[in-house]
């Protein structure tokens, strides 16, 4: 079974180490805040000046002065703090974040990231903090559905959409697999149970390599 969106977020969250400073981009990555491993302290950064983002508030706790990058209400962990936008992006661009988890339209086999415009003339482009994050965080990982709704692959030889940054993505979490971007190409580390490697390759434009220790990709029901 392909993972649900929340399960993709859960899988990405399992790789976060205790004490890590992690930015969550809008879309899929935002879900990570609600599925963090309970045994670790992970400090989530939101580009709009929140360090120490907590889980979504209960219905009675919503405070519209406290939102995340996707403008959804969040909470603040004990120990968290607020900064203004310029300082927030100093954190981003200055290499102070260990990791940024970002959404994508497309990722190339070389780790190129395209997530800001589809060039649809009827639809204004929106870059937000994506370019700042893509060049600023110490490491970039992407959370993305393996294909578009129409079935087109999002992991490509070259990005068709305009780039956000070149050669920055190190790991890709999809509903079907966990894939590392390496100097030897794309290496599949984990694959969901009911899809074989060949089927995965068919849904992926760029060539894939199976890791010697290829493992099943499984997530709890959530």
């Amino acid at each position, binding site marked *: 079974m392909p993972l649900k969106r929340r399960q993709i977020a859960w899988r990405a969250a399992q790789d976060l180490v205790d004490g890590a400073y992690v930015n969550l981009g809008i879309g899929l990555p935002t879900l990570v805040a609600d599925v963090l491993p309970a045994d670790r302290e992970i400090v989530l950064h*939101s*580009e*709009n*000046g*929140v360090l120490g983002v907590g889980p979504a508030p209960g219905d009675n706790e919503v*405070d*519209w*002065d*406290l*939102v995340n990058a996707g*403008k959804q209400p969040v909470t*603040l962990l004990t120990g968290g703090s*607020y*900064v*203004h*936008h*310029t300082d*927030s*992006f100093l954190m*981003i*661009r200055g290499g102070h974040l260990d990791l940024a988890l970002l959404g994508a339209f497309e990722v190339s086999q070389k780790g190129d990231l395209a997530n800001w415009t589809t060039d649809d003339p*009827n*639809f*204004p*482009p*929106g*870059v*937000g*903090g*994506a*370019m*700042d994050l893509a*060049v*600023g965080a110490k490491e970039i990982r992407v959370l993305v559905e393996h294909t578009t709704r129409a079935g087109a692959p999002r992991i490509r030889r070259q990005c068709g959409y*305009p*780039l*956000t*940054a*070149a050669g920055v993505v190190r790991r890709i979490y999809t509903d079907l697999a966990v894939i590392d971007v390496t100097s030897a190409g794309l290496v599949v580390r984990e694959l969901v149970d009911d899809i074989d490697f060949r089927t995965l390759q068919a849904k992926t434009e760029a060539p894939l390599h199976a890791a010697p220790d290829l493992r099943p990709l499984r997530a709890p029901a959530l």
Partner: protein
Amino acid sequence: MIDKRVRSLADAVAGIPDGATILCAGFGGAGLPDALCEAVIEQGARDLTIVANNAGTGRTGLAALLATGRVKRIICSFPRSSGSVVFEELYAAGRIELELVPQGIISERMRCAAAGLGGFYSPVSVGTRLAEGKEHREIDGRMYVLEKPLKGDVALLAADRGDRWGNLSYRKSARNFNPTMAMAASLSIAQVRHFVELGEIDPETVITPGIFVDRLVEVPA
């Protein structure tokens, strides 16, 4: 005696000239000076350039100002928020110019202006379409583009508390662009939820010192 408080929204936005560049704070709805945006509609300035992170949502606040057709150009990072219907209509009709700037670079360019600097070298956007036409330079083995200061004629701000010296404090993520925009404009105008007495904001926790604020008006939440 210093007293930057004014009695009405009309007094707060008086004198904004046609052609002004207006820095408009806020991230989504948090820290958004919606009452001041609407006051600018009444005030009547036109041919405006707006600098903001988003392009307004719904039909109020910044979106209402856009809907007047008096904004010729918007400089923002993310006009694509759900509910940016007014902007999308204007954009599709070719009735507004869009300059798209990465979010951190908008903020840093305004700070650059505020700090009296002539420009800075940024690694952001290198190798992308947004770097086209920008001066490139390699420094210590990394490629950068030259970014120029972005100064406002006016800043529209939203704060939680403000005193007669213009000292401001914010709540939570409503801080966002407000402190930087306050520093980066010739005329900085804040709507605050609460006027407080001088000294009520702890000197350690003033986020925007009054030196950066010219007028403030009380707009209860």
